[in-house]
């Protein structure tokens, strides 16, 4: 036993006092603070006051955090200055700051869709939102009916979301594997819960939650085991240290001499870490949760999850590959090639036969993950900028699309089956046109943000020597176009079904969310230069 203690004791003297740069960490701190404030509000405010106060707290928190991001950026962080915060656990560099900004904007829009209370019919005389009256009540049970009658609402979704946002902010900024793991869990756990909170179709919602949770935990376990192996290999979980060890620049200790002999540790660790991240990204073959969860979760949550999770996870994935494993490029690139190809092709092909609009969007998000991966694989400066831009473009299209889905309703809630979308363009041309715009952006039609993003990513990939990926990407885009167009055909050129869904008139919240989606989609399509600059001028990853 003694040598264990000795090992520990040997270092005890050198444990430095932690130094935390609160100013630079303020975006995350503000969000977490708002989340805690939300919990407190949930605990102490009367039921009537909760909704408005929660919305206000969440929006204020996000706005504050976004302001902090802007302030940091104006101080030169992310472009000319980079820093490592909290003893090197958190990176403050271009990609991190950019993605944090994107996540915060996404979160603002998502909170707006959460706050929608005009679409759902009133319950107990009170306007309600898309979330369950009382999560603990059994679906269809007496307790639930009572809760509905009383006009209860799950206002805790706001603080939960804020926690998730906080985790997401941390995830792409995490500079060591531990922080990354913790951030992963911090944003995943609230999402598991949020998935379960749908007001309608609660069975599906719960099923989505349980699937997401079990598979997410499974994936986390892989991530953690990968962390352990890498720690074993490099003796550190700091990304920069791992890179040093791989490149042989680290001072060789006795332990390192023995562990670095075994590349299996390194390679298996790398593979397992990738599994954890690719799961969150929704890449094939780790995608199977996506359609079920997207379908079952409350639609505002789906939108948030689809947009923000992808942003955060790709940020982390890139940081991992760019910072920790640049020296292993020749090992992971072929594998990632395979994953990217599979993801693009399977996503596109499977979407072709989908009948549910949310599942369709889920498969589409899988295909898009594949497109983004081609940019990740480029491993050049252009690739980084392109991926950042793509994430920005994609997330707002996604949010907008899911926000539209919340508005197409029949007596049982949202009418997500595609057949009920037939003739939507004839009943409600404006909404259908907006949705068509989002679909066209997904399909990558020029003059939409989707095209600019796709162009940027493919261009980077081609410049990085991944021409075959570009060609496969282009071909699967063509397949993908097929099902986007199918929906457009359905909306505009099919006759509406009798007794089909109606389009709810949303409040300003959802209207704003959709409006922002449209604006960003067109803006990034027509005049993308400013944002391309923003994405391409970011500093490289800090080590």
């Amino acid at each position, binding site marked *: 036993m003694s040598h264990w203690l000795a090992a520990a004791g040997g270092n005890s003297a050198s444990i430095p006092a932690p130094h935390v740069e609160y100013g630079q960490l303020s975006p995350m701190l503000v969000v977490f603070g708002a989340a805690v404030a939300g919990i407190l509000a949930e605990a102490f405010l009367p039921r009537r006051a909760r909704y408005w106060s929660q919305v206000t707290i969440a929006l204020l928190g996000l706005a504050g955090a976004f302001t902090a991001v802007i302030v940091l950026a104006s101080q030169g962080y992310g472009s000319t200055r980079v820093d490592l915060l909290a003893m090197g656990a958190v990176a403050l560099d271009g990609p991190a700051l950019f993605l944090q900004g994107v996540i915060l904007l996404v979160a603002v829009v998502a909170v707006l869709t959460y706050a929608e209370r005009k679409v759902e019919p009133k319950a107990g005389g009170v306007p309600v939102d898309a979330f369950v009256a009382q999560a603990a009540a059994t679906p269809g049970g007496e307790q639930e009916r009572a809760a509905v009658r009383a006009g209860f609402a799950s206002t805790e979704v706001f603080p939960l979301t804020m926690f998730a946002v906080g985790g997401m902010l941390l995830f792409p900024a995490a500079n060591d594997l531990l922080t990354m793991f913790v951030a992963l869990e911090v944003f995943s756990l609230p999402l598991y819960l949020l998935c379960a909170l749908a007001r309608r179709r609660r069975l599906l919602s719960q099923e989505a939650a*349980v*699937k997401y949770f*079990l*598979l997410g935990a*499974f*994936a986390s376990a*892989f991530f953690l085991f990968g962390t352990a192996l890498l720690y074993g290999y490099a003796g550190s979980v700091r990304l920069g240290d791992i890179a040093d060890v791989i490149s042989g620049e680290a001072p060789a200790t006795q332990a390192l001499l023995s562990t670095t002999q075994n*590349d*299996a540790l390194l*390679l*298996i660790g*790398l*593979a*397992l870490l*990738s*599994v954890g991240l690719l*799961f969150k990204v929704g890449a*094939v*073959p*780790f995608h*199977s*949760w996506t*359609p*079920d969860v997207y379908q079952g979760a409350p639609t505002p949550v789906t939108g948030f999850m689809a947009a923000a999770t992808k942003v955060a996870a790709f940020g982390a994935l890139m940081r991992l590959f760019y910072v920790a494993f640049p020296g292993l490029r*020749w*090992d*992971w690139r*072929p*594998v990632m090639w*395979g*994953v990217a190809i599979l993801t693009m092709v*399977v996503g596109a*092909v*499977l*979407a*072709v*036969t989908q009948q549910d609009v949310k599942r369709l969007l889920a498969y589409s998000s899988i295909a898009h993950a594949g497109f983004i991966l081609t940019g990740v694989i480029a491993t050049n400066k252009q690739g980084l900028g392109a991926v950042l831009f793509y994430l920005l473009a994609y997330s707002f299209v996604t949010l907008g699309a899911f926000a539209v889905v919340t508005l197409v309703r029949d007596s049982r809630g949202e009418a997500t089956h595609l057949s009920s979308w037939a003739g939507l363009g004839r009943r409600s041309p404006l909404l259908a046109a907006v949705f068509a715009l989002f679909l066209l952006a997904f399909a990558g039609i020029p003059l939409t943000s989707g095209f600019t993003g796709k162009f940027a990513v493919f261009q980077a990939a081609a410049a990085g020597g991944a021409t075959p990926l570009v060609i496969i990407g282009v071909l699967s885009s063509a*397949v993908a176009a*097929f099902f986007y167009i199918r929906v457009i055909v359905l909306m505009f050129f099919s006759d509406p079904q009798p007794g089909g869904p109606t389009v709810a008139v949303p409040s300003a919240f959802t209207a704003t969310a959709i409006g922002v989606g449209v604006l960003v989609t067109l803006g990034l399509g027509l005049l993308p230069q400013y944002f391309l600059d923003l994405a391409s001028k970011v500093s490289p990853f800090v080590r």
Partner: protein
Amino acid sequence: MNSLIPLLVAAPLAGAALLLLGGRRLDRFGHWLATAFAALSFAFGLALLASMLGRETAERQVDVNLFSWIPVNGFQADVGFQLDQLSITFVLLITGVGTLIHLYSVGYMAHDERRRRFFAYLNLFLAAMLLLVLADNYLLLYVGWEGVGLASYLLIGFWQHKPSAATAAKKAFLVNRVGDMGLSIAIMLMFAEFGSFAFGPLLGSEGTAGAVGQASEGKLTAIGLMLLLAACGKSAQVPLQSWLGDAMEGPTPVSALIHAATMVTAGVYLITRSASIFNLAPDAQTTVVVVGAVTLIFGAIVGCAKDDIKKALAGSTMSQIGYMILAAGLGPIGYVYAIMHLVTHGFFKAGLFLGAGSVMHGMNDEVNMRHYGGLRKYMPVTFVTFGLGYLAIIGFPGLSGFFSKDKIIEAAFAKGGTEGWILGGVTLLGAAITAFYMTRVMLLTFFGEKRWQPDAEGHEPHPHESPSTMKIPMIVLAFGSVFAGGLFTLNSSFLHWLEPVTGHAEGDSPLSPLTVTLITTLCMVAGVAVSYLMYGRSPVPVVPPVGSALTRAARRDLLQDDFNHAVLVRPGSALAAALVYFDSRGLDGFVNGLAATIGGVSSRLRRIQNGYVRSYALSMFGGTLVLVATTLLMRSV
């Protein structure tokens, strides 16, 4: 004076445009307007002739360049006219006979509600034909060439409500298009070889050599054959003759116009105009002669078997044009006579057709000669003018046809050697058959007993003489039929007139001219005699006898349509149908199949998404294993 040249074309063209665009308000006097425009053009022609006659032989050719038409690097097509002895001859024939036919049509079409349009088309026909003979380059000639095709299409199909007329018009245009293809290729060959297709630089003019002399004989033969193909189409020569008989679906004045003054003469013009090319391409010339000889006999045989008066005349036209083509193929010894026969033929054939029209006019539009008979008493003027045309065409001594045909037969013998004998024999045979079938027409129509039949509505025909607007042209043409040949032969005036353009060579005939004339006349008499024995002495059956195999075939135009149908139409339709199938099932099927495959793969792949969380976990686990394995493998490779 030269500024009149464009007006030659412009006058009838303006007439056509005016009549077509003018609308109903021109219905009352439009036909006179059109006739006036045609006459105006004729007047211009006469003025130009006078002016030309006033100049020295060497200065008779006049070139007018109007404007640059298609200028592209290295490719220059102009709108320009060349007026020389050859073209003025055609101009006068076209406008002169054309004006007469206009006049005739005033009476003939008096009761047609679309008369204005008919005259517009007639004017268009004249304009196109004039453009054809006046153009100073092949491409502009091509415009006139197809313009003639268009006008003939419009006129043959004038009675569009009759499906047969519409079909005949379409057929005429299509067959002509095949010929046009030849002209088109010929022009392309010229351009590729010489970088130009203008007459002057290419063919040379009197005393100067054109560029054609520098090209290889092979190239020139190719060009010549392509020009021949074009000529076959327009002039209804074998193998592109099939449209001519059907073209009788048009109103009779149209037939007269097509057969006498315009259209079918275009091929002869083309070959004569391209003399410089053909003179250097003996193989092409031989082909021309063969085509002419075959058509000569072919047309004559068809003419013998037809009971439809117009179709019998059509066969005759084919045969007579065969004479001209043959003559033109003989080279310098024949060019002048080809044109001379063309002009005399223009008179008598126009007269014959107008006479036939007059007969039909009086017989409720009946065309079957077996339902005529004894008409000479009822239509004396028609009988006399038709009779003079008849005498002219069979080569009755002293009349136009006698002189011009005789010269061709002489030239055929003058070709020399075995060829000369064969050609001479063929032309003589043709003369005999011509006499036979024309006598048959004459006998069936104007002699013998009445075999009139009530028409479809039961009206008995009441044959009567035609109005004077119809009679006058017939009389004028009869004068031409009688005297033109003699006039031309007097002092070899026609020869001296055209020689500077076409060149002329005296052949080396094994027989003296007198001998040829005698034999020709004998052949003619024989033909008349046989015909009289068959049709003049016994009553003609109203229902045609079955006849020999040859007769039956000849009635069906020697099976040409059957041949075309079997060789071109049926395989063509089958090919089109097959391609339609291929397009929808093959190409589209491939694409749809691809889409279906993707859909099928999608449906199958979907089953993996079975809803069981453990199977999702399994796929993740499997994926992880693969990921790990490949990562490790990548390193070991």
